[in-house]
């Protein structure tokens, strides 16, 4: 093969290469001149410069299959149980025909893929989960309060804590605010005690926010934390 410009990668596999040789030589697929085809097939394999074994191994397997068939053709003809002559090429021919059919089908798929790719559908529309059974309409607040009372009584809980019109304050403590508070103190002093940040009655949320703020400052490499033993006061030292 002198003017062989094809590469191994031009073929999907050994069967593809064989089909190429068969069509090129205008061979009847049911009567493959195995000697000639094997020769051409091997010529191809040898001529590939890019004989990457990862890719080529499959081609080599086919080469050995061809050689096996070739040698079988030289031996006296075998017969099967029905006294019919066994053609050593039979299996290969069946594979080639099946593969060729799939190759033809691929052409059809390619055509329909074109239409498929130019048809646009929507992704599933996203709707936030609103469970209808939780939506209660027309509630009488006093009825709700009564219901609550009865539940509380049932569970022997104190009722008088809940009056009908009680405002529950929302405490908003942000970590950012706490960071600001701490950094302000640290502008003046090099060290502060964690405990000293809380004076008088403090809410749990405030303590949590402050603690998160100290962790955040540590992460930002702005303070050093010193604690002598567990549950002891924490010293924040400016870096």
């Amino acid at each position, binding site marked *: 093969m002198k003017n062989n410009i094809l590469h191994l990668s031009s073929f999907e596999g050994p069967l593809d290469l064989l089909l190429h040789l068969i069509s090129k030589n205008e061979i009847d697929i049911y009567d493959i001149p195995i000697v000639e085809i094997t020769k051409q097939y091997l010529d191809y394999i040898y001529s590939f410069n890019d004989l990457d074994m990862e890719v080529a191994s499959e081609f080599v397997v086919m080469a050995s299959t061809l050689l096996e068939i070739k040698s079988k053709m030289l031996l006296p003809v075998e017969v099967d149980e029905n006294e019919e002559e066994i053609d050593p090429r039979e299996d290969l021919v069946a594979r080639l025909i099946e593969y060729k059919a799939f190759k033809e*089908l691929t052409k059809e798929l390619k055509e329909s893929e074109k239409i498929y790719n130019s048809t646009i559908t929507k992704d599933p529309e996203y709707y936030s989960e609103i469970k209808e059974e939780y939506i209660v309409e027309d509630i009488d607040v006093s009825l709700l309060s009564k219901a609550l009372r009865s539940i509380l009584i049932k569970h022997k809980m104190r009722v008088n804590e809940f009056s009908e019109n009680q405002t529950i304050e929302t405490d908003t403590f942000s970590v950012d605010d706490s960071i600001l508070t701490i950094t302000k103190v640290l502008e003046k002093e090099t060290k502060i005690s964690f405990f000293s940040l809380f004076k008088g009655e403090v809410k749990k949320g405030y303590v949590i926010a402050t603690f998160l703020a100290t962790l955040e400052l540590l992460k930002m490499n702005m303070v050093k934390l010193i604690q002598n033993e567990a549950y002891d006061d924490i010293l924040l030292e400016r870096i």
Partner: protein
Amino acid sequence: MSDIKSDFINKDEQELMNIIESILFAVGDRVNIKTIKEALDISENYAETLLKKLQSEYDFNMRGIKIVRTDDTYQLATRSEYFDYVKKVLTNYNTTTLSQAALETLAIVAYKQPVTRLDIELIRGVKSSSSLDLLMDRGLVEQAGRMEDVIGKPMSFKTTKEFLRLAGIEKLHELPEFENFVNDLEEHLDEKMEEASEQLMFTEKINE
């Protein structure tokens, strides 16, 4: 023309079709006919009739949107004929076509399903796991459980509803007969035989 048409359609029927249209739009994704049937409280057959009517109405008017049926689901989709224009607006839309290897693998899965990776590789004569992975990523192929009666219980694969849409069919059995593609080959051979006999007759004539 359209007046005459609407006369033929029962008003309630038109309304039901409108509702179906709304549902298809709202969901976006494929909608199972059972969902539609339940939402409208009608029989499945009637739902199918209505969907078909709606579908042909869309087609008849060459609307920009069509209703694609795959198996027992329906979905709104743009009409491929207008893609060249739609493409201009969708700047980030790129379609990557499947490679020859992936298409071959897809064809094999379509016709041999449920099929194992090894079976695919035997037919193609090459490793096919990366093609298979790609097809699964694209939602064209999915796992179909393990083959209990095969040694090692290998995983088998089948095509998805998305594949039906790619193949442009509604149901799997609408795939062209595999035999047709094999027969093609035989026809080709028959032609060759004819050619050969003509050749023979020709040479005989010359000999005369």
